[in-house]
């Protein structure tokens, strides 16, 4: 790796971690992991932002144009963090003296349990090395990576400047060179600008260096989740075991190895927004609420379905902030709004957005996948595809077998703890939306051919893993019969 590439990595990461520490950090177990995980993603998005704002006229020098700004941001954030640390030392000590109960419980591990954990984590390390080699060696491989996601950045980098992309009708109406077109022109640009940033540091369109952020995202997901799970009361062992479970999901590794798709990024930001929201529900830490909103707001800049997940998260966050009396009204309102949308509201919205033609038909090239919502019909066959994808094909290990078992086992937690119940309802809503998509629209083909179903489910998988981890956070084996008798006798003892 050349020194410009190294600097193009280090400075945004420092700026991202600094921004996280300055804006969102609250004392908790796992705070360093949280800062590194969230900071890595923020840093990568900051480099994309810098490239999009500062390098439109000269994409080949995007990193050198953005570097002073990001360096200044990193220094400013470091100054704020250092100053705040000095002022807050006393408060940190108080928190350190009172770790959550489960932290202490998690400290007691037998030797074989420790050995097993080390072996499982070593397998994650081995995986990371294979993923890094895979990305470092090969040209861009998966279909949509070169047919859709890399078209804009490669064009901008090789032209040396930005050109807009539009529909083929607009392209035909424009003089040559002023507008470009391809089928995925509506895709958001954040990852395209990220590619521009790393390509400019690499000195050209060097695909392995452009794709390396996908490995960083895979690692950031694991590190950030570990930290947040620790902050939410999971002991070391359980948090590490959950990290292993998440990191060993085959499709998650595939999306890092075959870099270039946006689904891993959506999974990262959705999972991180979800966890920050859960922390707010659990501990009412205001910075975590803002963090959840910020992460949710990133989603539409990454992929079109990011709009849907962003809306779902923001609705859930708003719903969670309502008093119980207002929640019922909010729920009724949401039902009414959904009914209005599907009874003509959507068509009106599409026409407002310019997604319908003169004849009233949907312009699929503009509306993208949202066009499916106007053509509803029942596709029961897709259920077989869904079941195969989740329970039979090797993309998920036993993850989807375990989800219902854990939910049934720990259902009382869902009923009694609101900070788990609301996130579970959000995920239920998201999965219901996916089922609606596959069973009631032409997207049923995506389930039967296994093209999109796993990728859409992947976007929710880290959040589901978080829910499972939190459900078993303080689960204990039933007491031994003689222990229970002893406890009963002790409780009946008048002394």
């Amino acid at each position, binding site marked *: 790796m050349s020194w410009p590439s190294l600097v193009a990595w280090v400075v945004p990461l420092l700026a991202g971690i600094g921004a996280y520490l300055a804006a969102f950090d609250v004392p908790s177990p796992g705070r360093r992991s949280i800062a590194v995980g969230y900071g890595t993603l923020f840093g990568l998005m900051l480099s994309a932002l810098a490239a999009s704002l500062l390098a439109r006229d000269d994409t080949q020098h995007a990193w050198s144009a953005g570097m002073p700004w990001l360096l200044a941001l990193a220094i400013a954030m470091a100054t704020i963090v250092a100053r705040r640390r000095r002022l807050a030392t006393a408060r940190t000590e108080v928190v350190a003296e009172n770790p959550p109960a489960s932290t202490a419980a998690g400290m007691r591990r037998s030797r074989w349990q420790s050995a097993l954990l080390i072996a499982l984590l070593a397998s994650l390390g081995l995986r990371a090395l294979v993923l890094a*080699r*895979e990305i470092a060696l090969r040209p861009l491989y998966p279909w949509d990576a*070169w047919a859709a996601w890399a078209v804009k950045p490669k064009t901008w980098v090789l032209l040396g400047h930005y050109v807009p992309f539009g529909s083929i009708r607009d392209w035909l109406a424009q003089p040559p*060179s002023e507008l470009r077109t391809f089928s995925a022109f509506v895709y958001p640009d954040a990852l395209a600008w990220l590619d521009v940033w790393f390509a400019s540091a690499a000195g050209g369109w060097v695909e392995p260096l452009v794709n390396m952020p996908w490995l960083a995202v895979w690692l950031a997901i694991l590190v950030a989740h570990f930290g947040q799970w620790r902050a939410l009361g999971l002991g070391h062992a359980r948090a590490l075991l959950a990290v292993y479970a998440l990191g060993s999901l085959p*499709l998650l590794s*595939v999306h890092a190895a*075959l870099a270039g798709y946006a689904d891993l990024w959506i999974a990262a930001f959705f999972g991180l927004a979800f966890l920050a929201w859960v922390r707010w529900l659990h501990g009412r830490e205001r910075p975590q609420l803002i963090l959840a909103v910020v992460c949710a707001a990133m989603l539409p800049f990454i992929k079109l379905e990011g709009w849907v997940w962003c809306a779902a998260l923001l609705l859930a966050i708003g719903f969670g902030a309502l008093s119980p009396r207002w929640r019922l009204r909010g729920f009724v309102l949401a039902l009414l709004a959904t009914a209005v949308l599907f009874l003509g509201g959507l068509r009106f919205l599409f026409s407002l957005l310019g997604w319908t033609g003169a004849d009233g038909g949907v312009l699929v090239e503009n509306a993208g996948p949202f066009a499916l919502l106007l053509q509803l019909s029942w596709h029961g066959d897709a259920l077989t595809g869904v079941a195969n994808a989740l329970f039979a094909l*090797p993309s998920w290990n036993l993850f989807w077998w375990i989800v219902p078992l854990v939910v049934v086992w720990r259902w009382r937690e869902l009923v009694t703890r609101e900070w788990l119940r609301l996130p579970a309802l959000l995920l239920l809503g998201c999965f219901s939306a996916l089922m609606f998509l596959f069973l009631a629209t032409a997207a049923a083909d995506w389930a039967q051919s296994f093209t999109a179903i*796993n990728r859409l489910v992947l976007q929710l998988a880290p959040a589901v893993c978080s829910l499972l981890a939190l459900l078993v956070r303080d689960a204990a084996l039933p007491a031994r019969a003689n222990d229970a008798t002893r406890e009963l006798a002790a409780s009946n003892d008048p002394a």
Partner: protein
Amino acid sequence: MIRRIVFAAVLLAIWLGLLGHAAGIPWKAPISSGRQLAMSGRDFLVRSGSGDQDTEGLVVSKLGDDGTALQTASLGRARAEQLRILRYRMSGFPNTLELALVFRRTDDVDDVKTVSLPSPRDGEVAIDLATVPDWQGEIREIGFAEYPTSQLVPPSTVAFEPFHIDAVTLQAPSWSQLLPRLRNDWTGYRPWSQRSINTLGAQIGTVPTSSLVATLGAGCVMSVFAGWLILPLSRRYFAKAALATALAAWVLLDANWLAELGGKHATIEKIYSGKPWSEREALQPDPGTFSAAATMSRVVAKEEAKRVLVLSDSPFTLLRMIYFMLPIDAVPLEQVAAISPEAVARAGTLIAVVDCECRYDANSGTLTKGTASFAVTPVTEQGELRVYRPREVSL
């Protein structure tokens, strides 16, 4: 004690039932197959590429000029439904090659049927051909074809390593096939493919495989449930057993996935390792399209063209051509023609034709694909690439 014996018997029944179901072995099948047609590698003749017979079989030593090797054996008249299990053992089969079964039926001798086979990299493979729609009637001839793995391995990187065809057998189903069948389904080498980003498992066009995840998941659930029903377990012991079973099954599946990932990656290391990016960039699985795009870039510069319209029969080739040509302003010709036929002939436009059965008629000066015709003037033709300048268009 009796409960434990019953539990052991139930466990045996559960797992035998599940494994037998996964392998597609009928309950009434015999332990070993009575009806079979066994061949050694020596029974195969080399039709394409090079190879020599030795005392134990056939050594395939080279691909043909078309990048494919083919070996066939005559069967006489074998009934497909009676001999539906194909077992083959090859040694040293390289992971850069894809293996396909080719066969001919008596009722249609001119039509050669093909189906992609699992790689025989590690010993013997057994597959059930009942899931192959064309495997019916009388089979007259079977054979193996080998070629660089499509959409993954650049043909130029296949430094051919000789491999050995040891034995090939067609059998009726029997329980003796249980292990070789499941071993291949669950642990066989599967290269990266364009489908991998969407799902793992058997790829399109190959013989379907049974599901290890479903078998293990169902087996674990049923075993734990049987233990709960039959054994006098305390709640604590039951919870421990359930957790240990789930963890063990997860780790087993993960170890299997890691091995699969390692196998996939070994191919990538073999192709790209130790080469600079300038060399790796050109090592595409579709080198013809890559070089056509490079040629087209030079033609565009020479002709001072503003736009390129690309025509191909294959969506893969079409989109790859457009990507490789970037930053040239290129779009699919048929997409433009469908919206605005007259726009095809705009000034500064060239048409690039690659991997296409299109016909050019020099007399009328038209390029025809299907029912669409385009009035063009030839500019150049190099390798797989043909370049035209549009004049006017009529559909």
